[in-house]
């Protein structure tokens, strides 16, 4: 067992805010004897404990890896600013919560990267651990630095920092990686050998084994393997059958966000909204049956004592047994004083029935709808078709069923969007408020949330530019003034705050230097917004002679090699192109469970498809 720093750490905990973030010791924590296993993982969520601990992916990997006798998996998070100061002052390297061992002593550091604004925190954590930021500068004794998560479908901006990425779902491939690592460690071979072997595992991307060339105009010429036996394209990994859901969740000792038990009832979405990254990269749709979910909730409640359960999916109403599931939840748990949440409901009457079923378990609370656009034309462009009549009927039903608070989510900055389309959002909100007032009275609460589109990789909108901040501001002003007059609460992202996300999500390898410069100049916790980091980022682009507008405001040619073209999500570029063209003429696609549009997912993974009795897939 390597040296642990408990006594030094305890001393500094007296001088930091919320020391409970750094002590671990939660109910259901798993502590294994260090010397009893061959491979030591530390799973790292690069934000503070309060933000990261509830992450379901982290919980799943923690249980899967620790279930293996040869593996130990501990956790670590980004220390908050006050703790970082203390760690640096006392020269204490960043440590894991379980054993308090230095991160440097682990074999594999697995970073979860759910969004891009977390990248500078990765560099900060590596620095606090005394590990070089650049993969090329790390030595034989350094841990393997592994990345995974939803942001990794375009890993290029952080390619230089990671030794390898998991592309896709981590449940099975993580164990594969651990096994390869274990054999390599026993054989006492070089780090270069390890990387080559990892690159042969389906779903593992080793960026240093690929070269990128550029055209004089800055666009990418090619992305090619520089070593024999390394695949040209990295096809994401999926789990054909969703594995047994974990139930022995860690129970945090301090208050965290999403402080509840989360159960993933379904993965993926068949609706094909064109702006939606998650909807494209998480295909095929797979679900857990109601018969499987109920015992998981029971075991989970008994093992954790949580008072709240979230039933998670991208589109809850599309679960084929959703009514049965909510009824069973009602029957089984009505006496348990629990509350249940069911996010992402579609705008249709059945959603109200679902919410009513759960409402009895939790009085109060509000209803949320996400029409995303306010005109039928605009909704056809984004492929979220909905008749106005159905929308207002659903709204009416919601109020008639006693809900007093309604949240509406819309997007602006969509392709072909006019000021009339934006004004329609305001008119819709006003009409919804009138309906609410008529049924509920003056106490009705309407809240409108406005997001501006960032065209994401692997979506039909990936070629589009981000709309200019001036135009977005103009649209926001129209809405802000109108909503204020109408007495409707509105929240929105300021255009600047989405810029960083658009650079980092749509960027290529050249951004690595920018990220490093930004971090060196103090950028961290970029996701928090409150720290005014944007100027640091602009300066970092300037220092490295890179034009940020190239990534944000440039419309990309349909034939251009995109930075993420070598990452294969199963959905083909041909399909995305056609969907983009359909979008511009307002042609929609129906739910692809009803008719297959050959997105490519069945060509890529159809041979793995299990019988429906084992795991339901949404594909026809």
């Amino acid at each position: 067992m390597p040296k642990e720093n408990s006594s030094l750490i305890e001393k500094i905990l007296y001088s930091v805010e919320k020391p409970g973030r750094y002590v671990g010791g939660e109910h259901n924590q798993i502590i294994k004897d260090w010397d009893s296993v061959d491979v030591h993982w530390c799973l790292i969520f690069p934000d503070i404990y309060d933000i990261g601990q509830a992450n379901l992916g982290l919980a799943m990997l923690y249980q899967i890896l620790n279930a293996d006798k040869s593996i130990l998996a501990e956790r670590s998070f980004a220390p908050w600013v006050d703790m970082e100061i203390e760690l640096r002052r006392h020269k204490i390297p960043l440590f894991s919560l379980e054993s308090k061992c230095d991160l440097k002593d682990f074999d594999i550091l697995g970073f979860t990267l759910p969004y891009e604004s977390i990248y500078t925190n990765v560099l900060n954590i590596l620095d606090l651990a005394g590990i070089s930021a650049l993969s090329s500068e790390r030595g034989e004794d350094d841990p393997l630095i592994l990345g995974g998560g939803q942001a990794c479908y375009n890993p290029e901006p952080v390619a230089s920092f990671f030794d390898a990425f998991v592309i896709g779902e981590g449940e099975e491939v993580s164990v594969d990686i651990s096994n390869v690592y274990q054999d390599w460690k026993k054989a006492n071979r070089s780090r270069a050998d390890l990387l080559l072997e990892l690159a042969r595992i389906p779903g593992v991307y080793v960026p240093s084994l690929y070269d990128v060339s550029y055209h004089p105009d800055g666009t990418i010429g090619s992305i090619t393997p520089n070593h024999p036996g390394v695949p040209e394209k990295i096809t994401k990994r999926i789990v054909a059958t969703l594995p047994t859901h974990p139930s022995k969740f860690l129970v945090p000792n301090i208050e965290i966000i999403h402080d509840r038990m989360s159960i993933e009832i379904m993965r993926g979405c068949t609706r094909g909204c064109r702006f939606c990254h998650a909807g494209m990269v998480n295909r095929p749709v797979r679900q857990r049956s109601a018969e499987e979910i109920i015992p998981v909730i029971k075991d989970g409640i008994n093992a954790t004592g949580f008072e709240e359960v979230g039933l998670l999916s991208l589109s809850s109403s599309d679960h084929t047994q959703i009514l049965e599931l909510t009824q069973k939840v009602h029957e089984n748990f009505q006496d348990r004083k629990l509350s249940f949440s069911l996010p992402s409901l579609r705008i249709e009457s059945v959603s109200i029935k679902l919410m009513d079923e759960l409402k009895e378990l939790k009085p109060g609370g509000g209803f949320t709808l996400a029409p995303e656009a306010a005109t039928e034309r605009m909704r056809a462009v984004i492929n979220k078709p909905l008749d106005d009549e159905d929308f207002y009927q659903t709204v009416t039903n919601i109020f008639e069923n006693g809900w007093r608070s309604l949240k509406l989510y819309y997007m602006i900055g969509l392709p072909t969007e006019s000021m009339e389309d934006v004004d329609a959002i305001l008119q819709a909100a006003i009409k919804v408020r009138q309906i609410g007032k008529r049924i509920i009275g003056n106490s009705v609460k309407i809240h409108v949330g406005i997001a501006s589109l960032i065209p994401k990789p692997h979506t039909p909108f990936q070629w589009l530019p981000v709309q200019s901040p001036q135009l977005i501001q103009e649209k926001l002003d129209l809405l802000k003034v109108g909503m204020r007059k109408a007495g409707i609460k509105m929240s929105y992202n300021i255009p600047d705050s989405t810029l960083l996300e658009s650079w980092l999500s749509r960027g290529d390898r050249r951004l690595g230097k920018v990220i490093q410069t930004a971090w060196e100049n103090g950028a961290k916790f970029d996701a928090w917004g409150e720290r005014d980091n944007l100027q640091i980022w602009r300066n970092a682009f300037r220092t490295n002679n890179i034009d940020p507008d190239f990534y944000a405001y440039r419309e990309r040619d349909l034939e251009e090699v995109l930075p993420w073209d070598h990452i294969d999500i199963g959905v083909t570029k041909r399909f995305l192109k056609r969907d983009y063209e359909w979008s511009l003429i307002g042609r929609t696609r129906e739910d692809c469970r009803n008719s297959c549009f050959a997105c490519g997912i069945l060509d890529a993974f159809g041979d793995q498809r299990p019988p429906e009795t084992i795991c339901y897939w949404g594909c026809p």
Partner: protein
Amino acid sequence: MLLGVPMSDTPIRIRVRYSKAGNLRFIGHLDTQRLFERALRRAGLPIRYTQGFSKHMRLNLASALPLGFISSAEMLDFWLDEPLATEEIREKLQESLPSDIQIIDLDQVDNSLPSLQGSLLASDYKITLPEEKSCEEFLQKLEQLLAQSEIPIIRRKKTVDYKPLILEYSLEVDAQTRCTLHLKLSSTPNGNARPDDILKLLDVDPTDCVIKRVGLFFSSLEG
């Protein structure tokens, strides 16, 4: 609602004395309260909830233990819907608690007793001073401090006189000549003294000490 669930109108009041140590000393008061709520739910005990619109567990901790202190004298009350053997309650609850919390006593008490919080008078603390501290010198400083007519301490921008709040003190030296300070301090809403405030006045860094609460004193407790 299911029919036929028996619910006694008179709740069963259970009083627990417990210790808190290890990593849990970095878990604050509200978090400790939630920790107990979840442990009670895991234990599967017939917990009494408050009635009304927003139901929550009836749980009453005697006193907030400051962050970083350990204790062998914490107390809390909770209520059950149905009577159960105290041994069974104790066993189930202990099993679902982290090992840094150990139940010392668990008993059923009378519903008519006043609340723990409302009847708390004082706390006893045992403070292990840093090894390098000279006991004699420390005692001298302490007595000088107590000889002052007032001991002003600034807490939340308000000055509090600690003089009447320090009820008892004594000093003990062990075989390794390590010094242990006993303090009995007032813990009422009108006067609540913290031992770390006193240590700071005596030029001792509280984070170098082990501060343990070893007793709670109430105005009217039975059992």
